[in-house]
Every structure is written in C-alpha cells, then in structure tokens.
C-alpha cells in the first residue's frame, strides 16, 4: 500500500525535528565558525593551523560528511520504526 502522512502520523514531525537539529549545526559551523567569528578563532592554534582557517578550508567539509552520515542512520532507524521503505 501507499504510505502517506495520514497513515504514518508522527513520522513527518520526527523527520522535521531531526533535519532542524542537523541544519542548525550546518549553519553554526559554516556561517558562525567559518565566516563570522573566524578572526577570533584564528587566535587558537593547533599544529600549523589557525583554527578559523582550518575550519573554513578543511573542518567544515568533514562536518558535512558527518552530518549526512548521521542523517542517514537516524532516518533508517525512523523508517524501521514506522515499518516503511523496506529494501527489497
């Protein structure tokens, strides 16, 4: 049968909540750490990097990969909970 919002109540709300949390992290890392407060963060150093510089050229990309990984795991779990979208 076709699954829609009506016969899976709660699924959409949980999905939205998850995406909101993950996109908040995405926003903070990219725009606050990577752009707005980058000069303050540059005062912190590790190895040969200034922290702000490292976040905007390397760190943010690693965070993006992690965010999508976390989204994938959480959504698979959510699908299982609602018995949706079984892989054949």
């Amino acid at each position, binding site marked *: 049968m076709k699954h829609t919002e009506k016969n899976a109540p709660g699924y959409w709300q949980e999905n939205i909540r998850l995406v909101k949390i993950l996109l908040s992290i995405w926003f903070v890392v990219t725009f606050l750490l990577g*752009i707005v407060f980058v000069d303050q963060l540059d005062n912190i150093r590790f190895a040969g990097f200034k922290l702000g510089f490292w976040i905007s050229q*390397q760190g943010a990309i690693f965070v*993006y*990969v992690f965010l999508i990984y976390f*989204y994938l795991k959480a*959504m*698979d779990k959510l*699908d299982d909970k609602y018995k949706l979208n079984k892989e054949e």
Partner: protein
Amino acid sequence: MSVQTLTYLFVGITFLLYITIAIKSRASSTSDFYIAGAHVPPLANGLATAADWMSAASFISMAGIISFMGRDGSVYLMGWTGGYVLLAMLIAPYLRDFGKFTVPDFIGERYYSQTARMVALLCAIFVSFTYVAGQMRGVGVVFSRFLEVDISTGVLIGMTIVFFYAVLGGMKGITYTQVAQYCVLIFAFMVPAIFISLLMTGNVIPQIGFGAELTPEYGGGYLLDRLDGLNQELGFTAYTESVRSKLDVFFITVALMFGTAGLPHVIIRFFTVPSVRAARKSALYALVFIAILYTTAPTIAAFARTNLINTVSNVEYSEMPAWFKTWEATGLISFEDKNNDGRIQYLADPDDNELTIDRDIIVLANPEIAQLPNWVVALVAAGGLAAALSTAAGLLLVISSSIAHDLLKSNLMPNISEKKELLAARIAIFFAVCIAGYFGINPPGFVAEVVAFAFGLASSSFFPAIVLGIFYKRMNKEGAISGMLVGIIFTASYIVYYTFINPAADNPEGWWFGISPEGIGTLGTLFNFLTAFVVCHFTAEPPQEVQAMVEDIRVPG
C-alpha cells in the same frame, strides 16, 4: 618514456575504457535512457554523482583559484560541499519518492501547471548550456596543452567520445562511464598531491602535511606560516587573511550552496537509484568522494604556491627550469623584465611585478614544478579530461530529457510512442553535443563569467520552488511561478548589469550593499521565497490531489 608518449598512452587507455563501457550498457527504454532504469546501486551512484558534479573547474581551476585567493578561496570549498547537506536532507529523498524522470516533471506536477513546467524547462536548459560550453572548452584546452593538437581538434575528439556513450546508453551509459571517470580523476588528482606533500613535509596524507612543518631542504617551519611570510614579503595579503568583506563571503557561500542543491544535472542522479534509502545512501557516498578532492585542493594550493614562489622569486630568468619555458610557450605564464636586471620579480604591486601567472597552472604544472616523475605529469591530462567529459555528459542528458520528455511527451505530442520518444531523446542529445561543441570551439566571450553565475541562477529559481513544494503544502502555482520569475530575473539582471552594461561599477563601492554579482543569487533566492509566500496567500490553495501528493512524497514507500 617521454611525457608526451605517456600522456597519449593514458588518455588512449581511458578513452578505450569509456567506449567499452558504452557498448556494454546500451539503453533499450526511455526509463533506461533518462534514469538508468532506476537500477543503479548507491555506491555506483555516489561515484557517478561525484564525477558528474566535479567539472573541469573543480579539477583544473579550483586549487589555482584558492592558491591566489588564500583564505577567501574558502567560499568555494564550503559552498560546493555544504550544498550537499541541503541536497541530502531537503531534496534528494523526496524527489526520489516522487519517482519521475526530470526536475521540470516535478515542478510541473507539483504546481499542476504546464506554465510552471515550461519555466522550469527553460531554466534547466539555460543553466545546462552555459555550463556545458565551459566543459567542452576545458576538453579542448587540455588536449591543446598536453597533446599539442589545436583546440578545435581537441573539442571534436571530446565530442565524439561523449556522443558515443551518451547517445547509445543515455543515463545508463553515462552512469557507468562516470564511475570509471571518477576513478581516473581522483587518482590523477591525488597522486601528485601525495608526492608533493611527501616531498615538502614528509607526510603521506596531504591534509596532514597542510598543517605540518616543512622539511629542512624546504627551509623548515610550518608550511602555512612560511606561506604567510612569503606572501607578505612580496606585498600580498597574508595567505590565511581575508580581503573580501564578511557580508560578501556570507552571500557567495549561500548562493553556491543553494545553487548546488538546485542544479538539475545533480538532482536527476538521485532518480537513478532503486529506493529512498538508496537515495540517502548515495548522497553520503557522493559527498565522501567529493570531500576527498575538496579537502586536498587547498593543500595543493598552499604547497604549489610556496613552491612556485621559491622557484621563481628573484631568480635569474636564464636559470629557470624547463617547465617554465614550456608553459611560457602556451601563454599561461609570462615574464617581462621591467627593470632589466635579468631576475624575475613577482610582486603584488602591478607596476613592479614582472610575472603574470594564469591560475590554471597550479594544477596543470604542479607535478613539473615539484619535479615529480614523468608518469605523474602525464596523469593530469587524463584526469582533466575525465572531469570535463563526465560533467558534460550529465548536462547533455538534462538538455535531452528536457526536450524529449518535458517538451515533446508532456506538452506537444502526448501520444508519442515510447520508441519514438527514445529516438527523439537520442536526436536531442546529438544536437546538444553539436551545439556544445560549437560553443567549445567558438566560445562567446561571456561563457567563463556566466558559468560562475549559473549557481546564482539555479539557486534563485529552482531551490525555493522545490523546497517549498515539499515542505509547504499550501504553496500553489501562482506563488511558485511568480517566485521563480522574480528570483531569476532579479539575479540575471544584477549580473548582466555589472558584467556587461556597467562593468566600471563592478567593485565593492558600486555594488548594492557590497554584495558581488557572485553572491547576489542569495538575495534573488530570498526574493523568490518572499514573492512566493505573499502571492500564495492571496490566491487559491492547491487542489486536494496535489496536497495528497505532497503528503505522499513526505513519507517513503
């Protein structure tokens, strides 16, 4: 063996590989042709998406741009990867559940309107054509520099190869050649990076070498500190300092991210997997494969710039190594001895600077500057061609499916048989290859500029319409169509004004609120959203069956 022979060998082998794949994966139905029958496994789709996405610009130009921009190059690194977070969470899974062939398909059905479909179709074709012309040019340039054939012959060879697998196999052929092309391009990109990191810092992993100390032969000290110092000595801003305003950096990053998430040739890759779960998984694979190149590019930028300055700055012209003369012949690097002292002065001040360097040289000549073995030098050509051809093929497919499916089947000739539609798709791709090739050989002056702006255009047109279509049930056709038009017209006008009509004002003082044409797509996107909301509240809500469709795509299965 000489570099020339090795280059021919590598390019020949990879082309043979692509043709073999093409012959093995012919399309027999429209579903094969448009979406590879939706049978592509997530890993293969991740590889194909990465190759589809990373164009000649990512492979050849990006590291060079960062090398000369330093800190400000971060906008490309974050913008072109961060967009995948939006794509994975806001777009790909839902459009896969919708389960059709093209992006205009979704816009047309969600907004129950042929007008909406036509607006989307025109945006898709416009964005794809500007983009594909740049790829064909890239093919020609690689051929002419490495294989000493002229640009036109290079473009023709490239066209023949793409034509072969795109016309025969459609999406099916394109997908599996893209998988092979990813492997070729990432190998060609990583090998020189690993070599140069090992040479300069003793680290095998370039991402670690980036923050490490230079070996004693290179003068010791942290690489980035050294580079900051070199830049300042020559009068440039320190490498890790920013020149652009924060506001502009913010706007450009947003425009690149939204644009990435709204580009039709990337979105349609998610139609090719069997399920919603597979769509999510392939988004992860795609970003991992992209991240390998994107986290390496800034390391190449820093290594190559340090190396370049050390090699040329204040050194006798007569003592320049062989690569300097080779690349001088291609015009990518040029020296004018203004003070007649026989030495090369590379300085920030344009009055005293004697060296002009094309940014593409950072990737193209990097292996030679670092004195790497001949086979590494020869790899670069095969990698650049793989990057350009894979992206070109993906774009050509968008053009072909827009014409055969959205224009003919859905609009002009709804009764067309599947066989005829398939034939029409093949003919459309044939003409698209020819037009792209024509623009590759005779590039209109604006191509280079417009490609960079394609993101702003995709961002201000598609992104809001798609996201609202999924997340806002009340959005109706009046809102979406007026939003798309306002967004793309505003963005295009701003770009056209500063690029063609009044280029003299194209500087931070002349711009609106200090936002560059590259970043204006963000404002266009905002206007799109606002217009859509206002208009939709004064017009009728969408029909029940459309609202039911939205409820359906929100829940997979």
